[in-house]
C-alpha cells in the first residue's frame, strides 16, 4: 500500500506540471493589474486578444503537428504568402468596381487559404511518403513560400484594398459607448466623434471572433474526435499506431495541411488588419508561436499537450509584452523575460519526465 501513496504523490506532481501555465498567467495578470498602470481594463484586454490572433492561429496548427511528434517551420512564410495572395486577389477583383467588396474578400480569403493548404499538402505528403524529416522539409518549403510571396508581391506591400477589408480587420462584434447617447451596439460601428470616440470600446474585434471559433474547433477535434485521439497516439508511439491499423500517413498529410491552413488564415487576417498583403508578416511570428506552444505544455517529443495550453502560452507572452511596455521597462528586458519563461516551461516538462521516470519498473 506504500506504493499507492507514492503513486498519488507522483500524480499530484504531474498535475502541478500540467497546471503551472495557468497559475503563472494568473500571477502575471494579478501582478500587472496591481501595478496601477491601467492593465486590467476592457480596452487593454481587447488589445491583447487582438494581438495574439496571428500567433495563436499559427500555434493551433503547430500544436497538433507537434503533438504528433512533428514540427512545421514553414508557417511563418506561408502566412506571408497567404497575406499577399489574398490581398492581390481582392485588389484585382475590386479594381474598377468589377466586383463588390464582400465576394472579393471571400474569394481572396479562400485563395489565401488555398495556397497555404497546397503547401501544407506538399509538406505532409513528402514527410509521410518519402520519410523526409519534418524539420528539414518544412524548412525547405518555408524558403519556397518566401520566394513565392516575394515573387507575387514584387517585394512590396500589396495595397489597393477596399475599405471593407480594413473594416473586417479592425471593426468589432460589439461596441460600448459610454456617456450620453451611449449603450451597447452590435455589428454596427456607431458614428461618434471627439471624446466619445476616444472612450468607445471595441468588444471582440472580428479577428478575435474568427480566432475564437478556430480555437473551439481545434479543441473539439483534439479532445472528442477519433482523428484527435489518433494524433495523440501517433505522437505517443508511432509504431503502436501503425500496428493498431491507424492510417498514419494519411493523418500526417491532414496534419500538415491543417497547420498551413491556420497559418493561411492568420495571413488573411493580417491583410485585413493592416489593409495590405505583406510577405514578411509571418516570419517574426514563427518562433514566438513555437515558444507559446512549448510554454503551454506541448512536449517537443510528441504525445503531450492541449490547445488550451497553447492559448495560455500565447497569452502569457502577450501579457508580458504588453505589461512590460505599460511599465515602461527597457525593451531589451522584454526579450530576456520571454526567454526565461520559455526555459521555465522546458524545465517543467523535464520535471514531469523525471517524476514519471521514477515510475518505471516495479
Amino acid at each position, binding site marked *: 500500500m506504500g506504493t499507492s501513496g507514492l503513486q498519488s504523490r507522483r500524480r499530484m506532481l504531474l498535475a502541478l506540471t500540467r497546471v503551472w501555465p495557468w497559475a503563472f498567467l494568473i500571477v502575471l495578470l494579478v501582478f500587472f493589474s496591481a501595478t496601477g*498602470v*491601467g492593465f486590467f*481594463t476592457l*480596452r*487593454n484586454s481587447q*488589445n*491583447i486578444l*487582438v*494581438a495574439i*490572433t*496571428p500567433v495563436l492561429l499559427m500555434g493551433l496548427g503547430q500544436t497538433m503537428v507537434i503533438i504528433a511528434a512533428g514540427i512545421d517551420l514553414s508557417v511563418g512564410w506561408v502566412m506571408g504568402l497567404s497575406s499577399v495572395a489574398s490581398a492581390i486577389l481582392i485588389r484585382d477583383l475590386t479594381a474598377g468596381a468589377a466586383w463588390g467588396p464582400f465576394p472579393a474578400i471571400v474569394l481572396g480569403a479562400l485563395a489565401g487559404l488555398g495556397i497555404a493548404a497546397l503547401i501544407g499538402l506538399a509538406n505532409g505528403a513528402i514527410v509521410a511518403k518519402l520519410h523526409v524529416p519534418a524539420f528539414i522539409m518544412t524548412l525547405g518549403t518555408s524558403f519556397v513560400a518566401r520566394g513565392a510571396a516575394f515573387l507575387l508581391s*514584387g*517585394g*512590396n*506591400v500589396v*495595397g*489597393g484594398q477596399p475599405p471593407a477589408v*480594413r473594416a473586417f480587420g*479592425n471593426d468589432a462584434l460589439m461596441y460600448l459607448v459610454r456617456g450620453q447617447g451611449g449603450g451597447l451596439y452590435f455589428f454596427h460601428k456607431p458614428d461618434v466623434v471627439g471624446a466619445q*470616440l*476616444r*472612450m*468607445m470600446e*471595441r468588444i471582440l474585434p472580428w479577428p478575435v471572433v474568427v480566432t475564437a471559433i478556430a480555437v473551439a474547433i481545434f479543441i473539439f477535434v483534439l479532445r472528442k474526435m477519433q482523428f484527435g485521439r489518433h494524433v495523440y497516439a501517433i505522437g505517443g508511439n508511432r509504431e503502436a499506431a501503425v500496428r493498431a491499423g491507424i492510417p498514419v500517413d494519411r493523418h500526417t498529410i491532414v496534419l500538415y495541411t491543417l497547420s498551413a491552413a491556420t497559418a493561411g488564415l492568420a495571413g488573411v487576417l*493580417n491583410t485585413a*488588419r*493592416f*489593409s*495590405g498583403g*505583406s510577405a*514578411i*508578416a509571418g516570419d*517574426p*511570428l514563427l518562433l514566438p508561436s513555437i515558444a507559446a506552444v512549448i510554454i503551454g505544455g506541448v512536449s517537443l517529443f510528441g504525445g503531450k499537450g492541449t490547445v488550451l495550453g497553447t492559448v495560455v502560452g500565447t497569452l502569457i507572452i*502577450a501579457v508580458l*509584452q*504588453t*505589461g512590460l*511596455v*505599460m511599465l*515602461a521597462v527597457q*525593451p*531589451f528586458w522584454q526579450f530576456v523575460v520571454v526567454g526565461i519563461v520559455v526555459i521555465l516551461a522546458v524545465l517543467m516538462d523535464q520535471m514531469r519526465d523525471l517524476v514519471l521516470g521514477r515510475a518505471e519498473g516495479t
Partner: protein
Amino acid sequence: MIAPLQAALDAGIKIITVDTFLGNGDYVNGPVTFPLSYIGSDNVEGGRIAGNALADALGGKGNVYIQNTVVGTSTTEQGSEGFKEAIKAHPGRQLVGEDYNNDDASLSTQQTAAVLQREPDLAGIFGVNVFSAQGAGQAVLNAGLGGEVRVIAFDATQSAIEQLRAGTVSLVIAQKPYDMGYLAMEFALADARGVTSLPKRVATGYAVITRDNVDNPTSPASSTRRATSRPGSEGLRALRAAPSQEPRWTAPPAWRPPPAWARPDCRAAGACSSP
C-alpha cells in the same frame, strides 16, 4: 562586403555604393576609401527631419514615442538617433519611450496600444519604417485617436502613401531612391569618360509628404510613387531603357546639385514641406 568589393576593384571594376556604405561612409578620410562615391540618404539627417517635422506638426505641447523595428539595423537606428537629437532641441516635447517590434506590424500595434494607455499626453509617434508606422497608426485609429495623435513614417513606399491617404499616418518622410539610382548611373558614365572630380558623398536628401502635397504632380511624392523598396532600381531601369546615343558629355560635366527641397539643410532655407 569590403573584401569582395576590394577584389572587384583590383580586377579593374569601380565601385559606387548606393543607399548604403562601406566602412563609415566617409570615403575621403574614413577607414574605407576605394569606392568612388556614396550616394544615399543620411539616415541621421532623415531622423532629424522627421523629428522637426513632427514637432512642427504637433503645434502645442505633447510627447512623442518611437516605434523601432529590429534591434541593430543600422539604417533604422540612425533614423532613431536623428529623431531623438531633434526632439531634444524642442523644449516641451518629451520622448516617452522607444520599443522594438521586430518588424512585426501586429506587435507594433500591441505595443503602441499599450503606450497610448500609459501616456495620456502622447501626441506624436515616429515609425522608423513602414511596418512600424502602419502598426502604430492602426493602434491610434483603433483607440479613436485618429487625427489627435500624429504618426510619422520613415520611408515612402507605395504602402506608406496609401496609409497617408487612408489617414493611418499623418506624415511621410521620403527618401529619393529614384535620384539615387539615376545619379549612380550618371556617376558611373562620367567616371568612364575620365571625370575625376566626382564628389565622394552625395546626400540625396528627403522630402516631407503630407496629405496636402501628396497629390501635387511636381511634389516629391510623384517620384516616390515610382519608387520601389529596392532603391535605385527604377532609376537604373529608366537609363537602361533610354535609346543609346552619342556620349552626352564631351567635357567633364557639371554635376547638378539636388533641388532646394531635397537639401538636408532645407530647414534653414525654410523650404522643408513645400514641393
